[in-house]
């Protein structure tokens, strides 16, 4: 096994572990809605939420990095250049994540000065980590990009997938530089912040997961390189063709000119169309291969990716993207419903698929199947869909009562939050969060024990 692939396994273990932290923090955040006095004066909602959304970003990023470090040496036929540095930085990255999390929980807030931003909490959503840690993330990502780009250049065999990946890594790193500024003018701050957040999760990350799924398809279904490359270029064209100006759907209400209502609404309304194509492609692959593969969980999680992306991003997104609706739905639990579904469908399912693939290859398993992955698959997906459904009810209630009827004042906000539709939906959300958590526990157990318990005959067969 290449050193890069051993590093990949470490990244994937870290990613799946952080997935657990994210889930716990999510349960805690959800519980505050049911019992607002829980841990009052000790740990508040905003800290739990920071842990939840920041581990979301980091676990997915680590999952992507793990996937790329896994596929890269086979793709380029050699150990990536500078892998020794990446190996060291992995431990530095993990240590930094732990330190940042501990500081969030124990210290929580710094002073309203530069020292607070550098050492404790920057307070900007998804990128709350203090600047010292953000600097570390930049270093890790620059080295990661170097590992990919330098190796591809040195071998002079940048395949189509590698070329797309190389080009994608540059904006991926550059956009993260918006994790640093503290611009006073909120409109200005949010304008650039959305370049980071949207052009990560609705542009560069889409390309990144597209590259990863291309590698995965070649291994799980034996699809030819020519086909996956063709479809990767089509996906990049369609997703970025709609997503770059779809950035405008975040510019409706932040003080920007009103032409963004038309531009952002139009391009984001087009975003479901490529996702429909992705569904067709998934059905074609499923049908031509009769769902036969040596790694059933990986294939099923890839199918979940296609359908989850369409439902979470396409259907749920389209409900709230047109400005006339968004005026009322913006900044409510409706957004939360869409966000959970879209992140899960677009990225969560894909990283889990790769995790199963890596387990198969690392443990030389001729076949990956069983009962346990099915229970995990059911628990995670049903739990997630039910959570999303509960949040949809809460979000619609909030939009109707607080925004459309109540006039968005404090009293209107309270009226929405205290509606039985809202409060009961939040209880259901928590309950299904527990179902999701059970699915996660089964996932961890399955990944950990797959192939570990072999019969004597199997061990003998492997040895010969």
């Amino acid at each position, binding site marked *: 096994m290449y050193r890069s692939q051993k590093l990949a396994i470490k990244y994937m273990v870290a990613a799946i572990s952080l997935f657990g932290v994210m889930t716990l923090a999510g349960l805690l955040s959800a519980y*505050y809605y049911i019992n*607002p006095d829980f841990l009052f*004066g000790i740990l*508040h*909602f*905003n*800290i739990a*939420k*920071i842990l939840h959304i920041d581990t979301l970003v980091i676990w997915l990023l680590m999952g992507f990095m793990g996937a790329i470090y896994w596929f890269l040496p086979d793709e380029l036929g050699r150990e990536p250049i500078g892998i020794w540095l990446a190996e060291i930085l992995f431990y530095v990255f993990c240590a930094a994540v732990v330190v940042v999390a501990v500081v969030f929980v124990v210290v929580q*807030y*710094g*002073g*309203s000065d530069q020292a*607070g*931003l550098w050492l*404790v*909490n920057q*307070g*900007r*959503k998804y990128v*709350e980590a203090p600047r010292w840690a953000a600097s570390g993330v930049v270093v890790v990502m620059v080295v990661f990009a170097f590992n990919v780009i330098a190796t591809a250049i040195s071998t002079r065999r940048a395949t189509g997938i590698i070329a797309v990946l190389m080009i994608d890594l540059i904006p991926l790193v550059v956009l993260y530089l918006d994790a640093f500024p*503290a611009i*006073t003018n*909120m*409109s*200005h*701050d*949010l*304008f650039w912040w959305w370049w980071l957040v949207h052009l990560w999760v609705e542009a560069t990350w889409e390309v990144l997961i597209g590259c990863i799924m291309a590698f995965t398809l070649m291994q799980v279904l034996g699809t030819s390189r020519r086909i996956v490359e*063709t479809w990767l*270029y*089509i996906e990049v*064209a369609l997703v*970025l063709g709609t997503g*770059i100006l779809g950035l405008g759907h975040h510019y409706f*209400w*932040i*003080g*920007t*000119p*009103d*032409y963004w209502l038309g*531009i952002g609404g139009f391009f984001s309304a087009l975003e479901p169309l490529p996702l429909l194509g992705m569904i067709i492609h998934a059905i074609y692959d499923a049908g031509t291969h009769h769902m036969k593969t040596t790694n059933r969980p990986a294939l099923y999680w890839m199918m979940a990716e296609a359908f989850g992306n369409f439902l979470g991003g396409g259907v749920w997104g389209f409900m709230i993207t047109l400005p006339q609706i968004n*005026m009322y739905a*913006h*900044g*409510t*639990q409706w957004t*939360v419903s869409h966000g959970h579904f879209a992140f899960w469908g677009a990225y969560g399912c894909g990283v889990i698929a790769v995790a199963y693939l890596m387990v198969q290859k690392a443990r030389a398993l001729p076949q990956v199947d069983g009962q346990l992955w099915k229970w995990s698959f059911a628990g995670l997906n049903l739990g997630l869909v039910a959570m999303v459904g509960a949040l949809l009810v809460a979000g619609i209630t909030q939009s109707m009562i607080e*925004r459309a*009827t109540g*006039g*968005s*004042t*404090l*009293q*209107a*906000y*309270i009226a929405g*939050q205290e509606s039985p539709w809202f409060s009961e939906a939040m209880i259901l959300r928590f309950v299904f969060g527990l179902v999701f958590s059970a699915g996660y526990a089964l996932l961890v157990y399955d990944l950990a024990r797959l192939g570990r318990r072999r019969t004597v005959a199997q061990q003998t067969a492997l040895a010969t």
Partner: protein
Amino acid sequence: MRFDEPAFWRAGAISTIFVMLCVLVMLTVDSLSAIATGGSHVPPYTVVNKHIDYVYDAARGIDVPVIGAAQPLFGHMLDDRTAAAMMDKGKLVIQSRACLDCHTIYGNGAYYGPDLTKAWLDPSWEAWQSITGTSTREDAMVKFLMDPVQYRTWTRTMPNLNLSEEEARAVVAYLKWTAAVDTNGFPANFGHVHTDQ
């Protein structure tokens, strides 16, 4: 180049991205001037010296901020430098206490607490003046921010984030300024109950 060849779609991807990026850059340049303080949508920080309202504009079909007569904040008219310094401080407070991990401004943030875009204009502050024993809206807001547990609004209590008086005043000034930004009508019908009849 045939359309079933990868090279065709590679060219398509490159040209599509190039065109979209060019448009994005052009719109960004235009938007940045509109959202600069003093631009078409974002008033200068010294707007906190004025009365701010939020009124329906029939021509645009949305609510828009209306800047009125002089209304000193905390009893003083602020010059450009003082107003800017207060805003810098206010934004740093909002970041350091992670306010937007409970609240939203312009709908961006978290949803555990109310949206603060027009918090300056919220009708509840009238009642909070008598509850906090203050005579102005801004003083009531400062008192609340410095001890939200004592002056709790409802069952979901805002925690005490140990704001100094200087920090609380800076946040209030910041919220008065955000209330004056033209957000294309968000939030709609602020302060007005709108039934379906």
